[in-house]
């Protein structure tokens, strides 16, 4: 009884101390750290390493934004969120930005009141089967048992795809990716379906990855991107253009190794504008002139981040595919820095 009163007091004290209604940028600067929502663990995208330091592709976005705003890529409080808690955490202000491989959809952007600031990974749903089955295309999957995570868009996409192709399937509902691996390896289902990046990461962890094939068909569009609350356009701009700066840096050939040299001045005016040598782009979004330089210094440009976290040199081994620059046949295309 007594202790609960005491805890109540703490709560009240926290309540009284918590009143603040500045812009998100001012909040973050006053706090000195960025509150970033990530997943509780998705291989390659966000997971704490053995020292408790968060690593991954989504994590790199948080670090870049923190570097742009605060000049320090480590000034991030990572808030692990589940599929259920992620949107509330963002809406309630517990986190400033959500980078949790979240699919950009119409209703999330409009009805839920969020602003997606871009796409950092173009994903799509795929299928994985055992090589012994001899299946080479998803159109041969009629009558298969399929392991599928419940309550996700992948479940709906699967139903659509089989109906369009006039095939039948038997779903094996599962809750988490780890459970899916066990079920699939134990032979509870012929096919495992989820986002292609997840399939690649899962297959990489198998004892014999070569025994399993990922079928070529991609049956849905899953543009994954960071999002912020609607209604603070300045903050959305900062997040959007930080992501764009990483992409533009790759396009312009700015890497973490030649960053210092490029910042000293080049004969390409766009690089100079990006890195703060010319113009005052930083001031337009309320940051200092070196904001993009700090963001790129945090983990390198988009290509470097991709290579270090999920690229072909990592165990996950994803090819750039759709996530290549538009000049390389991909979809990455940032508006000009002008």
């Amino acid at each position, binding site marked *: *009884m*007594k*202790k*609960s009163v*005491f*805890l*109540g*007091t*703490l*709560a*009240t*004290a*926290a*309540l009284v*101390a*918590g*009143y*603040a*209604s500045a812009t998100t940028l001012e909040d973050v600067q006053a706090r000195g750290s960025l509150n970033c929502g990530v*997943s*509780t*663990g*998705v*291989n*390659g995208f*966000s*997971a*704490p*390493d*053995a*020292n*408790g330091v968060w*690593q991954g592709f989504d994590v790199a976005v948080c670090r870049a934004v923190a570097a742009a705003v605060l000049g320090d890529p480590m000034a991030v*409080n*990572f*808030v*692990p*969120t*589940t599929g*259920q*808690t992620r949107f*509330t*955490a963002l*809406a*309630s*202000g*517990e986190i400033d930005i959500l980078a949790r491989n979240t699919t950009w959809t119409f209703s999330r952007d409009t009805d839920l009141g969020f602003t997606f600031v871009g796409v950092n990974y173009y994903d799509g749903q795929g299928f994985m089967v055992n090589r012994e089955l001899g299946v080479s295309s998803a159109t041969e999957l009629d009558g298969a048992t399929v392991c599928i995570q419940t309550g996700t868009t992948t479940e709906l996409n699967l139903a659509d795809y089989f109906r369009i192709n006039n095939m039948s399937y038997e779903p094996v509902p599962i809750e*988490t*990716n*780890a459970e899916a*691996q066990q079920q699939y390896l134990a032979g509870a289902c012929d096919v495992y379906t989820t986002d292609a990046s997840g399939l690649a*990461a*899962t297959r*990489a*962890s*198998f*004892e014999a990855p070569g025994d399993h094939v990922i079928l070529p068909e991609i049956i849905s569009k899953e543009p994954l991107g960071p999002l912020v609350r609607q209604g603070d356009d300045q903050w959305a701009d900062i997040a959007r253009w930080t992501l764009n700066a990483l992409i533009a840096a790759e396009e312009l050939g700015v890497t973490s190794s030649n960053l210092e040299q490029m910042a000293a001045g080049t004969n390409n005016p766009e690089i100079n504008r990006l890195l703060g040598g010319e113009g005052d782009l930083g001031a337009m979004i309320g940051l200092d002139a070196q904001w993009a330089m700090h963001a790129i210094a945090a983990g390198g440009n988009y290509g470097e981040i991709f290579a270090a976290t999920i690229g072909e040199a*990592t*165990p*996950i081994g994803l090819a750039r595919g759709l996530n290549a620059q538009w000049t390389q046949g991909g979809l990455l295309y940032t508006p000009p820095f002008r």
Partner: protein
Amino acid sequence: MSDTHAQTVPYVRETMLPQQEPPSSQVGAVKWMRENLFNGAISTVLTLLSLAAILFFGYELLPWLANSVWNASSLSECRQILDGATGACWAVIRVNWLQLMFGFYPPELYWRPILAFVMLAVAVAPVLFPSAPRQLLGFSVVYPFIAVWLLWGGPIWGVTVAAMGFVLGYVALRALTSRGLLIQTIAAVAVALIWWLFLAGPVADVLSSALPLAIEPVPSREFGGFMISVVIGVAGIALSLPLGILFALGRQSTMPIIKWISVTFIEFIRGVPLITLLFTASLLLNYFLPPGTNFDLILRVIIMVTLFATAYMAEVIRGGLAALPRGQYEAADALGLDYWKAQRLIIMPQALKISIPGIVNTFIGLFKDTTLVVFIGILDPIGRASAIRATSDWQGVYWELFIFIGAVFWVFCFGMSRYSMHLERRLKTDHR
């Protein structure tokens, strides 16, 4: 020997026969097996089935355990070492051991939770064992404040002023002894509340600026692993027992408002799954509270878990109260004891003793329920295990982590269960 029968019988044995060995079927292991394992057809079949099951699991598990790998930095390295054989990869526990214990707690500050848990052992000793020195009870009273300060850090004045509230309330209680119990209680609560709501904050600020005595603060989000299970579990256990007693008494009260409040609370909380309360704590409260409010998530969870356990505890204790013969209440009245004295000296000691198995049952359930916080994004042992499996190094590890977590929980719960049996034997005063 006499010659009495010499004429009537031709032969009389003059020495005792040495004792014969009992038949081999009636002795030793054979007899035990016949009586216990092969006592009839059904028993024989069951024995054979059990043996087959044991052999099967032994055959499957022993190589896995015998080939355990303890030194590796990733699952693929484990597999290389095993070289095709099946074997457990306990290296995942070894590498992530500190993470599973403390979560993201800063490594250089690990001494603080360790110290807090060592002090916890000291603080609960006088409560659990009568042989412990009684003077330690004073320490038990201040321990919660020390523990909060050690775990969360920050200036010492925060917890000091919080503790001051209790002292002031107690002073008010004493000062008004002549005014009757009701006024005493109201005054004590009012004084404490006024202190906490209006004076505690400024006083703490003044004290902090006058004498900055602080240790490095650690925010709640850096808590994790078994530390968070123990923090939530211990807080829930310590709070739910006294609250449960109050609600059990409230439910039996003759005062209608108190009775209705108690009944409503108990029936509402018992009728709702814990996971719903946790989602309320983590999601809905965020909408109800003003934007920008930073109401500590662990605090919210502790409150919800406590409320949940309290409702169950109240019903367990009500069962104990109902089991007491009416004569005990009447005897207390006959002795001229007032309500609280009767409860404290006669009713509660007996009712609680009867309820011990149920109370410990609730405690164990509560401790295990702390793993549900994984659904609201707190990285407790289960959540931390999922995060470990989400790294490239350890994706695909499954059994080792869950076996380890299960074993640790088993140790805690088995300990509680053994203690409750010990307590029952110690308090056994009847002669049934």
